[in-house]
């Protein structure tokens, strides 16, 4: 695609088309102009987070030019990264996200394999059902889930509410349907000759899955993993409803509830916390952008 685009903007293949290529140069200039405007709009909040995080409380309340740091300091970072409470949030978020990714993969890869390659009774319905489940938002289910957990807790005596580990069971409802859906797509795109060859060589279905499907569909697997991780990392509603004690909170909820003390907003720390909370998904995105985007666009295509 890129070569094609360069070709278009190139000087001129035919002299006659001079006006057309001039039009294109202007189109390119205008594109850059507007892209800069939109980039400013899109990047203002994250940049402002960074600016504020480098300021001391004194500089923030002095109400100098908000877009500039006159006395940069890392004190906010030092304070947060040495506070046990913040590290606890970070730890909770990390452990939950990692466990959810593993659980999601363990559920969705076998299911996607079965749905992509074995036609069985109800398989088409199940695939549609998986897609529909993906469309059910968290805000529809948080109240009944809350009540369900309370009832189970009363019934069995196992503490479920206000415990971070319960989120490990709840988050897969958000990640598994989408991951299964895109894995079906990736598995279905693998040529059947490949697994037929494996069968002829005497491979069992488990070997076919582990030795053929997973290696070949690795890009899809990475995309699904990234999706599962970012969704669990960013989830806000479920932890807000199900957990309340400070030592059980995850990062997004922890920052919004504990760093805001009464009416006192310690903005330097809040922005630092928000930036640190945004860092893991941003780092993953920076290194695995193509997989990230592949996962994003795969959602709207049929598996």
């Amino acid at each position, binding site marked *: 695609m890129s070569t094609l685009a360069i070709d278009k903007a190139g000087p001129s293949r035919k002299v006659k088309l001079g006006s057309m290529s001039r039009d294109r140069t202007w*189109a390119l200039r205008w594109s850059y102009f507007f892209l800069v405007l939109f980039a400013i709009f899109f990047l203002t909040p*994250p940049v402002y987070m960074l600016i504020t995080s480098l300021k001391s409380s004194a500089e923030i309340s002095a109400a100098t030019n908000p*877009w500039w740091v006159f006395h940069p300091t890392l004190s906010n970072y030092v304070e947060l990264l040495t506070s046990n409470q913040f590290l606890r949030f970070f730890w909770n978020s990390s452990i939950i996200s990692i466990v959810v990714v593993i659980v999601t993969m363990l*559920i969705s890869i076998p299911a996607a394999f*079965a749905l992509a390659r074995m036609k069985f009774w109800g398989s088409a319905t199940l695939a549609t059902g998986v897609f529909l489940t993906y469309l059910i938002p968290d805000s529809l289910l948080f109240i009944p889930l809350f009540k369900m957990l309370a009832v189970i807790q009363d019934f069995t005596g196992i503490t479920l509410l206000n415990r971070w580990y319960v989120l490990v069971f*709840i988050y897969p409802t958000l990640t598994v349907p989408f991951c299964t859906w895109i894995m079906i797509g990736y598995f279905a795109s693998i040529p059947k000759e490949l697994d037929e060859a494996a069968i002829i060589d005497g491979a069992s279905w488990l070997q076919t899955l582990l030795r053929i499907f997973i290696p070949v569909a690795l890009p899809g697997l990475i995309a699904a993993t990234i999706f599962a991780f970012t969704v669990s*990392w960013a989830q806000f509603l479920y932890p807000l409803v199900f957990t309340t004690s400070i030592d059980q909170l995850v990062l997004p909820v922890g920052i919004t509830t504990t760093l805001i003390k009464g009416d006192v907003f310690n903005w330097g720390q809040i922005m630092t916390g*928000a930036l640190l909370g945004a860092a893991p*998904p941003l780092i993953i995105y920076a290194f695995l952008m193509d997989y990230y*985007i592949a996962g994003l666009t795969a959602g709207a295509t049929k598996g």
Partner: protein
Amino acid sequence: MADIVVEQGRVARPTGTRKRASLRNALGRKSTVAFVLTLPLILLILLLVLYPAFYSIYLATLNKAMTKFVGFGNFTFLFKRETFWMVVKQSCIFAVTAVFFKALIGFIVAHFVHNIPGKKQRKWRGMLLVPWVIPPAMSTLAWLWLFDPSYSAFNYTLSFFGVGPIPWLGDTFWARFSVILVNVWYGAPFFLIMYLAALKSVPDQLYEAASIDGANWWQKIWHITLPMMRNIIAITTLFSLIVTFANFDIVRILTSGGPLDTTHLFATWAFQVGIQSSDIPLGACVTLFMVPILAVAAVFILRDVNKRGNEA
């Protein structure tokens, strides 16, 4: 052909004794294997999605203490409350306006990015997708700080133009504007990426042919781009409609529904009523009102996705 996978695998193995063979038969049968493989998925959907969904309907018919069946009591109670109708109205305004601007900005920016050649395009695309990558709860905090009543960086900037100070979150109109703005900011990159992928799939020859026939840029968009992207536009818009309609994070952090409940959406109001005021049945009742719109959007998405699958 792949249907024989399992069968073949079983045959290929050396046959054991009779007794074990029957067990192995059961294990090796394709439907059994498929059932075992999909069982965790089925259990997850049944226990943690479908069951709560129906439980929600049951909850909505109880009284506040959840001791008595009141039928449609909660529903009629809601119908009589002014706040409820305001939430319905605001949810619809919010979702429709936000999705419209997300789609529009996404469409425009996708064209600009598409114009950029080669390597640079990758960089721009990477930069413009950042709002979508940051967890919304985190980025909304940055917006909250940008909108801060006394230290608002926006008002500081606007003061140089002799505008403001604008009560971003204190006034009903501006609060509604702000929550929509933040939602557009967060969601537009998603549209951008989807539309960019769709634009790349439109063959260049079509545009060249149109240019030779003397079509202007508007005619090219109207007669080539839009028809070619119709399906992806429909899916993306409907999908975004669901997500935006059910939005929680942004409004919760930015305004918590204020001023005077005027920015509440179904989700945030249900949270306030159901969890904070612990009237679970009423909260469940509020969330149920999202179902009709979500269901309609879901049906259309399913239709379009299937159609798309058949085309490919």
